[in-house]
C-alpha cells in the first residue's frame, strides 16, 4: 500500500474503540464529576460562602495547605539529594534505593497511616523518645507533615531523575574548563537546568498532599480547629447528612488542585520554550 493511499485509509476499530472510550469516560468520570459542580451551583451563594468561610473550615484549609506546603518543601530538598545519588553515583544498594522510592505508591494509605502511628505515637518507636523533649509527633500538625512527606517523596524523585539523566555533564565540563569552581558550576549550571523539574516535582507533591486522607487521619488526631484536614471535614459533613456543605468544601479543594496542576502545565510549557525544544 502506498503512503498516499494509507493517509486516507484507516486501521479498523476507530468507531468501536472511540465510542467505548467516550462512553466509559462519561459514565465513570465526567457525569459523576459534573454532579459535584452542579450541586455546588444550585446552592444559595450565601450558604455556599458561609460554609467555606466558617472558622472550622478556614482552619482546616489553612492546616491542609500549610502542612502540604512544608511537606512538599522537605521532599524537594531531600528528593533532590536522593535523585542525585541514584543518577550520579554508583554505590552498593543503589538499585534497591531506586526501587523502594515507589513504596508510597504501592502501599495502601490506611496501612501507611497505622504504620506511621506505630512509629510516632506517644508510645511509638520514635515518638516515645521525642516526648520527653516536649516534641509531640503524632496527634499534632507535625504528624500530618510527616505523613504528607511520606506520600509525596516519589513525585519529586521521579520527576527529577529523567532531568538529571539528561544533564550530560558537557555544560559542566565547559564551565569547569572556563575556570568556574565547583560551587559556581552548581549554582549557575546545574540548579538553573533542574529548576523546571524541581518546580514540577514540588507542585505535584503539593497537589497530592492537599487531597491525601488515609495516611493522615491516623496520625492527625482530628481535633477540630487544630488537626482536622479538609478531606476529613468533608467526611464529617457527610456524617451530619450535610451533603451541600460537603460539596462546597470539595469544590474549593478541587479548584485549588486544578489550579496547581495548570501551573505544572505552565512550567512545562515554559521550560520547553526556554530550552527551545519542542
Amino acid at each position, binding site marked *: *500500500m502506498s503512503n498516499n493511499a494509507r493517509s486516507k485509509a484507516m*486501521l*479498523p*476499530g476507530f468507531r*468501536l*474503540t*472511540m465510542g467505548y*472510550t467516550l462512553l*466509559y*469516560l462519561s459514565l*465513570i*468520570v*465526567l457525569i*459523576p*464529576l459534573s*454532579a459535584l459542580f452542579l450541586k455546588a451551583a444550585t446552592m444559595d451563594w450565601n450558604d455556599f460562602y458561609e460554609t467555606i468561610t466558617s472558622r472550622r473550615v478556614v482552619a482546616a484549609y489553612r492546616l491542609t495547605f500549610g502542612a502540604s506546603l512544608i511537606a512538599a518543601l522537605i521532599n524537594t530538598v531531600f528528593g533532590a*539529594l536522593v535523585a*542525585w*545519588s*541514584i543518577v*550520579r*553515583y554508583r554505590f552498593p544498594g543503589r538499585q534497591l*534505593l531506586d*526501587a*523502594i522510592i*515507589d*513504596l*508510597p505508591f*504501592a*502501599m*495502601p*494509605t*490506611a*496501612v501507611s497511616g*497505622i*504504620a506511621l502511628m*506505630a512509629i510516632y505515637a506517644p508510645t511509638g*518507636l520514635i515518638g516515645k523518645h521525642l516526648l520527653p523533649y516536649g516534641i509531640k509527633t503524632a496527634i499534632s500538625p507535625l504528624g500530618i507533615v510527616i505523613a504528607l*512527606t511520606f506520600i509525596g*517523596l516519589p513525585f519529586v524523585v521521579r520527576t527529577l531523575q529523567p532531568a538529571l539523566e539528561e544533564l*550530560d*555533564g558537557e555544560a*559542566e*565540563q565547559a564551565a*569547569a*574548563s572556563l575556570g568556574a569552581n565547583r560551587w559556581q558550576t552548581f549554582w549557575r549550571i546545574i540548579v538553573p537546568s533542574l529548576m523546571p523539574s524541581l518546580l514540577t516535582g514540588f507542585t505535584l507533591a503539593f*497537589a497530592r498532599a492537599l*487531597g*491525601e*486522607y488515609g495516611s493522615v487521619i491516623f496520625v492527625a488526631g482530628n481535633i477540630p480547629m487544630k488537626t482536622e484536614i479538609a*478531606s*476529613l471535614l*468533608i*467526611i464529617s459533613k457527610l456524617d451530619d447528612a450535610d*451533603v451541600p456543605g460537603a*460539596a462546597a468544601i470539595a469544590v474549593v*479543594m*478541587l479548584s485549588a*488542585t486544578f489550579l496547581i*496542576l495548570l501551573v505544572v502545565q505552565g512550567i512545562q510549557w515554559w521550560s520547553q520554550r526556554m530550552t527551545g525544544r519542542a
Partner: protein
Amino acid sequence: MSVNAKDLQTGSNDPLWVRTTVITISVTFVALMLVLPLGVIFYEAFRKGLSAYFKAFQDRNAVRAITMTCLAAGIAVPLNLIFGIAASWAIAKFNFRGKGLLIALIDLPFAISPVISGLIYILVFGMQGWFGKWLEAHGIQIIFAVPGIILATIFVTFPFVARELIPLMQEQGSEEEWAAISLGANGWQTFWRVTLPNIKWGVLYGVLLCNARAMGEFGAVSVVSSNIRGGTNTLPLHIDALYNDYNSVAAFAMASILALLGVVTLVGKSLLERKLEQESISSLESKTTEVS
C-alpha cells in the same frame, strides 16, 4: 584543567566527602521515611507471636473483608483493562482533534482526592443525589453497599492501564498492524496476533499498578461504604475498624497482607520496567536496521 564529561555524569569527579555526605543523607532519609514504616507493620503484626497473627485471619469478618477486596479488584481491574486497551487503540492508531484534551480527561481521576472521588457518587446515587429517590423506590442500593464500593474502586484506578498503554502504543506506531491488514488479517486478528504481543509487558505493568491501588484504596471506599463491620468492608476499611477497636495485632496482621502485596508490586514493577526498557531498545535497533 581537564574534566571529563563522563566523570561528571557518574559523579566520580565529586570529592569523596561530597559523595559520602549526599549518599548518607539520601539513604538515611529513605530508610527513616519509607523502610521503617514498612518494617514496623511486620514487627507489630508478629509482636504477640505467630498464633496471635494467624488467629486474626480466622475471624469471619476478616475473611469477608478479604473476599470483598478481591471482588472489588476483580471487577475494577478487568473493566479498566478493557477501557485502557480501547482508549489506547483509539488514541495511538488514529489522528483526531482534541486528542490532548481526551488524554487529560482520562488522567483526571489521578488529580481528584480520594474523599471527593467517593463524594461524587453520593451526589449521583445517594439519598440526596440525582437518582437516590428513584433507586430507593425500586429497592436498589448503591451507596453504603457493594456497588458503591466497586464504583469508587473503578474511579480511583481508572487511568492506570490507559496511561501506561497510550505512550507505549504511540511509540510503537502502526507499521506492523498495516502489514497484517495488507496481508488480509481483519481487525481482531491484527489486535490479537500483532498488537497484543507487542504491548503485553505494558499491559501487565498497568494491571499490576491498577490492582495494587484497587486492593488498597481507603478514602474513596470509606465514603461510600457504611461502617457496619462484616457488611460491606474491604480490607483497608477492616484495618481501620480493628485499629479503632484497639485490636492492634489483628489490624497489623491484616495490614501485613497489603504491605506484602505492595512489596510484590514493587518487585514486579522493577522487573517489568527492565523488560520494557529492553524491548524498547530492541525495537529501536530493528527499526534502524530496517532503515539502513
